[in-house]
């Protein structure tokens, strides 16, 4: 131990810590309350998903994508399904596409609700968390009607969706969409525009656009830095190019553009936009096939493909290499949270312990996706 080291204290934050969002371990070097360095250690949740992909057939891997970002299983299913479809050149029926958008956007809302809630409880306000959970339950009920599961849906499959939505789903979804905006208003009153909350987050951990590009940050975190980049707009997949929605970007309402408050607020804005998208999709929904004709044994031609989709936490990419057999030769998952996590050591220099929590919460990382 050198003399310079003696000044600092090393603390392990995690793997078991209330606000590391899973089993993330941060080795924190502090000088009193002020951090001088943070080193994330990951891998506590490693399940070798990429290796598993090489051992199971293409359809068999879909349930595993549920477990990537378990708060946005639909989106993960979707990205994987699109990857394999691109490899196989499958044209997805229109009804299936609309259903996929509905599910993906509903899941975006539910994922952002958790992000909002867990962030608020990180900030010390526990009530918004339960409010968020309450609305999420509604969405879970919708998913349960649609696919029978509440967390790991395995609904969006290669070629379409696993089954058509039953009667009553549309009405219930409309009910939710009517009820939801009032709740967002409530969140804003309760938390978003609260002076304490703003004071905790404004000007904290500002990510400049350059940094965001350098670290490969995507999703709401990138848009919070003022960059209008949304794959649903830039590389429209499914029927996103027919839909009317805004891409909210950070404007630095409470401080500098790209601070923690902007990142938090992106999620609130995106929930509003997602609700708008779902409403449009419900209107567009016309009878049709819910899945393309897909043979039971998938044997894609040899080749490689990379498909990315806009997940609640950023760009989820699947890089798939096929050798012509029934199993992938190699599957590489580009997890958005992994890139988002990588900037934390840079942001967390010279801030206080409480700010570190705000940074982790505002980046909205999820560990299963990082460790894979």
């Amino acid at each position: 131990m050198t003399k310079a080291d003696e000044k600092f204290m090393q603390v392990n934050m995690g793997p078991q810590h209330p606000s590391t969002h899973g089993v993330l371990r941060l080795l924190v070097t502090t000088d009193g309350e002020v951090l001088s360095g943070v080193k994330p250690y990951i891998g506590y949740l490693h399940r070798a998903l990429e290796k598993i992909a090489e051992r199971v057939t293409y359809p068999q891997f879909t349930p595993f994508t549920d477990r990537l970002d378990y708060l946005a299983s639909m989106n993960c299913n979707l990205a994987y399904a699109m990857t394999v479809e691109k490899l196989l050149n499958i044209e997805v029926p229109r009804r299936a596409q609309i259903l996929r958008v509905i599910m993906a956007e509903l899941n975006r809302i539910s994922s952002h609700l958790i992000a909002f809630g867990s962030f608020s409880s990180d900030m010390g306000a526990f009530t918004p968390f339960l409010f968020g959970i309450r609305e999420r339950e509604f969405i879970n009920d919708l998913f349960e009607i649609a696919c029978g599961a509440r967390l790991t849906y395995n609904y969006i499959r290669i070629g379409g969706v696993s089954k058509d939505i039953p009667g009553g789903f549309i009405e219930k979804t409309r009910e939710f969409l009517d009820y939801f905006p009032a709740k967002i208003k409530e969140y804003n009153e309760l938390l978003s525009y609260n002076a304490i909350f703003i004071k905790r987050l404004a000007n904290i951990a500002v990510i400049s656009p350059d940094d965001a590009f350098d670290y490969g940050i995507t999703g709401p975190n990138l848009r919070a830095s003022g960059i209008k980049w949304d794959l649903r707009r830039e590389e429209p997949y499914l029927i996103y190019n027919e839909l009317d929605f805004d891409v909210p970007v950070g404007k630095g309402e409470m401080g500098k553009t790209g601070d923690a408050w902007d990142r938090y607020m992106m999620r609130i804005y995106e929930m509003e936009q997602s609700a708008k998208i779902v409403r449009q999709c419900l209107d567009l929904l016309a009878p049709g096939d819910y899945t393309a004709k897909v043979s039971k044994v998938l044997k894609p031609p040899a080749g490689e493909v990379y498909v990315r989709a806009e997940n609640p936490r950023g760009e989820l990419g699947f890089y798939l290499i096929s050798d012509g057999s029934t199993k992938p030769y190699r599957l590489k998952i580009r997890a958005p949270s992994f890139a988002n996590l990588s900037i934390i050591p840079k942001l967390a220099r010279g801030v206080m312990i409480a700010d570190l929590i705000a940074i982790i919460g505002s980046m909205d990382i999820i560990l299963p996706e990082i460790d894979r």
Partner: protein
Amino acid sequence: MTELINRILTGMSTTMPLTRLLITILIMVVSTAIVLAVSLLYEGFATYAERKVAGDIQARIGPNRVGPYGLLQFVADGVKLLLKEDIIPFYADRWLFIIAPYIVFTVSFAAFVPLSYSDHVSIANLNVGVLYMIAISSVVSMAILMGAWGSNNKWSLFGGMRAVAQIVSYEIPIVLSLLAAIIIPASLNLRDIIAYQSGGLGIFRWLVFNNPFTLIAFFVYFIAAIAEVNRTPFDIPEAESEIVAGYHTEYTGMRFAFFFMAEYGDMFVVSAIAATLFLGGWQIPFIGGIPMPVWLREVLQIGVFFTKVFLLIYVMMWIRWTLPRLRVDQLMELCWKYLTPIALFNLIGASVWVLLLHDKGVYDIIARVFTR
């Protein structure tokens, strides 16, 4: 108390000094035990109330399984804590670790002593009651530091440091705002202060309505008092999302329960001070002037006192389940840049008021104008 002992002793035939001494001590012990039992009961119900209030606010039900309406939940919790393994960390400073929770609890209980619950019910009538309460609450910081340092845990040490910094800082606005009220009855004796607030239909001579400065002082005191008892939004010493559990990270079982009960005890004490100094203590509003039997008056007075205290405690709980937490430096900023200057100017204003108008409050002036 002393009168009671004297009355009992004069009624006795024995003159043996030793017997008299033993009886005196016995009476002291028994009366203390009664208050202790009552305070423990209160603390139990306070934990129940906290959870019930949290449940109400969060659109939940709260405890409702043990006993009718879950009223016996605290008994179950107590039994659970008693049965838990009592862990003393290997590297802990055994002695400090063991005695700290008892000191914290003793100190919080000691603050119940000078409280005046009704015209005749109080354990000790101290001439320096208010000062005693302030002094005893400053001891808590010492005991917390003891436990925090004794745990030999870095999170505990963080919590302990934060607790001490917070308690020591917030004592200043507390004392300054209390002074603004005390200079009007010109006494540190809680009974004198309550007696001063009699009349005026039982509410209009409350010190909080005495003049504009005492009104401000009440709010400053209440905010600072929430900080003094470490509750959200000022719960940084035990901020669970930042420093695990702060100074009681390493405590389990009954030792933890002592810290926990002390927190609720402190809540009662600060609310009782607010009720006594600003809200007329046990003065019965509106019907205080009507003649009634002594026992009924006593019961009503106790009821009124507890109602006021519990209302203030409810407000504390309500605030806790609404607001996010402040950061350490913001907490200090609030204290030194807002509360302390306001309390100081307020004290000057109150002094000028007293200098010019003696102890005449707004009500007295209005009353005089009307009677003229």
